[in-house]
């Protein structure tokens, strides 16, 4: 491999990673791209709903980028920093245009314009979509552009390579990574003047989620253990209706309820009769009973909690975590309208939802928290980008374009983009905002990375990676080789898959929909037990070739560490905000907790240290987050459209 200076490494080939590659390669810096799967198979393919951006039609109806920012902030319950969100909302229309130029088959109006749909959290149509597979289409478009740079030799792909550890120099600057080929098991050190982590979410900590099997959060957890802090790790989004499966939970669109689907459980616990044999009076339509006004159309978070509670009390269907979502009574025409989503259910469960009520349960869906990152707020004094003829922005309206600080973690030269970055969504993510934040990170902040890499070698930025002694890299390589050797040689009694299953069950019960101190303390014990058992692993594959058993066991260790941070931050945040609902502290408490929970790994104790970092509100003052209770009344249509919001 040619060791040119400067060089950038991108870990992750989802939307965020690929957008970063394209932008950095375009800036003339060669990129080495690492991904556990061929990038085209990254988790971003799963997104269905769409991508948000202000547009000409909405603008003429009174919508604006500012409002998009405002929705994102209130959606996130003001836990997000305002300048980056400002920048993202204002940059969004450019992203859509660019994707359009790249050939994304956005749905069209009869005039040939890009079509728009209504999505949760807004009264304006601001969501662009490509059929029912927007994420797939966007990912492919960026994959194609990356391939173009690859063909020109500007991007070097390492697919089926797993990121293991960031390499840091004496002063703690990130100067490369250790990675391993998952097929040949070859482990190598790679030099770089900047490293971007775009490794996605961590749903696998919960065992089963709506995410792909590769979303284990291990990459972020490794950076965390290497000194990069986490931000708001307690913020996890749960989707109310997912299809629980043996292997994963698949999203069930909310349109099933929008069209008249009813949620119920048998009144009698463990009733093993066929659902259609259970007479009406023996069914508990708990949402309709508790909320006679809205019935099954209560807002997402309420539905999520109620379903969760009913199962906690032991009324779940078959004693398990599942309730019926029944559309069997609906007229044929309505069933036809729902055909696309009903077919998904049928494909993966084998049951026909037209004949048998569907079984659903909330599932972990998105990781708002992630690696803690910084940014340089926009300052008109130093702005050199805005043309002289155009008015400058006010201070804090956005970020300083190209500033190396943008979305850099507290480890110099280590960046976090996409779902692994905590920056944009605060305490809840709005539907169709994730795809936006991923691409925004890559395209807008990619330049910051290139600039940082360019500067390395000058002054405070240390020696260029190409000139650092090999011994530095060998040291980290040895650390990882030893770790692997230790795992491979374990002859204990604990099966990693069993530990993982128990971790998932515990985390799902203690730290998802409803969090409560007692239960979380119990989970703390359980995690300690699992960490203990983890030291006594039983490895059934001791081979040195494509050993998935060992790779999984290694990642499990990192998941345990991440879970610990997540749980501790959940315990420490004694308030309810956005997706973080504490039954023992049901109110939002701005005085104490309008703060980022910044979690550092304590290498000595191996446990998290939490500090609270205040969040400035330079653009929008805090206000109560009430829309959740009103959007159903105000606009039932919004609710229905939210269906596709995923």
């Amino acid at each position, binding site marked *: 491999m040619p060791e040119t200076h400067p060089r950038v490494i991108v870990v992750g080939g989802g939307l965020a990673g690929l957008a970063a590659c394209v932008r950095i390669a375009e800036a003339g810096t060669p990129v080495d791209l690492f991904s556990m799967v061929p990038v085209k198979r990254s988790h971003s393919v799963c997104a269905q709903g769409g991508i948000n951006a202000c547009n000409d039609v909405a603008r003429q109806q009174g919508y604006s980028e500012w409002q998009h920012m405002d929705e994102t902030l209130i959606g996130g319950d003001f836990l997000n920093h305002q300048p980056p969100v400002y920048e993202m909302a204002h940059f969004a229309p450019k992203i859509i245009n660019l994707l359009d130029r790249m050939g994304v088959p956005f749905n069209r109006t009869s005039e040939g314009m890009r079509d728009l749909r209504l999505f949760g959290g807004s009264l304006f149509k601001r969501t662009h979509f490509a059929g029912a597979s927007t994420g797939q289409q966007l990912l492919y478009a960026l994959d194609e552009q990356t391939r173009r740079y690859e063909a020109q030799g500007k991007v070097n792909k390492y697919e089926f390579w797993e990121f293991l550890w960031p390499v840091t120099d004496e002063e703690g600057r990130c100067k490369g990574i250790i990675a391993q080929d998952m097929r040949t098991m070859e482990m190598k050190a790679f030099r770089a003047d900047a490293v971007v982590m775009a490794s996605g979410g961590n749903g696998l900590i919960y065992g089963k989620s709506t995410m792909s*099997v590769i979303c284990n959060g291990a990459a972020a957890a490794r950076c965390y253990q290497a000194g990069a802090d986490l931000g708001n790790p307690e913020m996890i989004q749960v989707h109310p209706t997912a299809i629980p499966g043996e*292997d994963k939970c698949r999203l069930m669109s909310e349109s099933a309820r929008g069209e008249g689907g009813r949620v119920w459980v048998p009144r009698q616990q463990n009733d093993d009769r066929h659902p259609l044999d259970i007479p009406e009076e023996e069914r508990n339509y708990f949402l309709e009973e508790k909320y006679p006004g809205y019935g099954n159309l209560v807002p997402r978070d309420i539905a999520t909690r109620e379903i969760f509670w009913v199962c906690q009390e032991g009324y779940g269907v078959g004693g398990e975590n599942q309730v019926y979502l029944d559309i069997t009574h609906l007229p044929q025409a309505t069933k036809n309208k729902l055909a696309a989503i009903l077919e998904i259910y049928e494909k993966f469960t084998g049951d026909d939802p037209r004949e048998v009520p569907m079984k659903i349960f909330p599932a972990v869906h998105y990781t708002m928290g992630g690696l803690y990152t910084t940014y340089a707020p926009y300052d008109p004094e130093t702005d050199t980008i805005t043309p002289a003829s155009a008015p400058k922005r006010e201070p804090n309206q956005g970020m300083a374009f190209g500033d190396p600080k943008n979305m850099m973690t507290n480890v110099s030269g280590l960046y976090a983009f996409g779902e692994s970055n905590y920056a944009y969504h605060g305490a809840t993510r709005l539907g169709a905002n994730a795809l936006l934040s991923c691409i925004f990170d890559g395209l807008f902040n990619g330049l910051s990375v290139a600039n940082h890499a360019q500067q390395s070698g000058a002054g405070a930025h240390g020696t260029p990676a190409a000139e650092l002694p090999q011994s530095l890299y060998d040291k980290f390589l040895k650390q990882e080789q030893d770790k692997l050797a230790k795992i491979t040689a374990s002859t204990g009694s604990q099966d990693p898959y069993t530990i993982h299953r128990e971790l998932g069950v515990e985390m799902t019960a203690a730290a998802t929909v409803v969090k409560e101190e007692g239960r979380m303390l119990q989970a703390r014990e359980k995690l300690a037990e699992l960490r203990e058992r983890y030291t006594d692993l039983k490895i059934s594959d001791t081979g040195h070739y494509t050993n998935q058993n060992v790779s999984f066991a290694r990642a499990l260790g990192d998941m345990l560490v991440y879970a610990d941070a997540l749980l501790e931050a959940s315990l420490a945040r004694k308030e309810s905000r956005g997706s973080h609902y504490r039954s023992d502290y049901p109110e939002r408490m701005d005085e104490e907790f309008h703060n980022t929970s910044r979690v550092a790994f304590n290498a000595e104790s191996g446990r998290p240290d939490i500090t609270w970092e205040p969040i400035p509100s330079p653009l929008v003052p805090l206000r109560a987050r009430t829309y959740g209770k009103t959007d159903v009344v105000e606009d039932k249509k919004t609710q229905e459209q939210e269906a596709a919001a995923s």
Partner: protein
Amino acid sequence: MIAPNPSEKTFLVRIKRQDAESQPAYWQEFEVPVKPAQNIISVLQYIAANPTTTSGEDVEPVVWDSGCLEEVCGACTMVVDGQVRQSCSCLANEQLAKTGKDHIELEPMTKFPVVRDLFVDRQRMFDNLKKVKAWVPIDGTHDLGPGPKETPEQQEERYAYSRCMTCGCCLEACPQFTKDNTFVGAQAIAQALYFNQHETGKKLKGERLDELSGPGGVADCGNSQNCVKVCPKEIPLTQAIAKVGRQLTVHAVKNFFSAK
């Protein structure tokens, strides 16, 4: 380890295993308890946690490839009872009912080098995308306004092609695509067409057609039309082959009269 409980209903899974590309293949059989709505991935997960064959031998867990588990990433493609498909969307019960057998047979795809067990290397497909320049040659990421307009009909047609998840089913079932020839197969042909149909993508049409007129190009298709039948995304592959055939005919005639 939890051995299958004797009172539980079980079925057999026969897996064709291979330790590496250069190693010989062998079969192993596992007994798996029947669960409702259990797909092949959960069967493999069960075997990974309980890697004991029916003859009581403790073996190394089976290696396989997967990602989304929703049939959109294409990773988990394998040969199930002789037919190529995604294993995540294959329910064990339905498969047993379909074949009427008491066991399910899993094999890696046969047209790609085996990495290990059910895990194959489909790099050739990605290389082919490079060959046919499957991208839109945009000027750069700067803000240069919207892309070309297109009618809903054009969008619909392009959308159909854009759903290709590089799974390789079409190549696995193609009699003309073999491990040791250079045929690019339906996937790359359809992708070339996808970009030839885009207003800006068209700029590379000539280069794509040149590539597809060479060895391994579209003329190597033998029109067996298996590809279109096994494509899980129902991509109109034979239509793509015909359209590219037409573009090539026109291209060749044009070249003949205008080449220098």
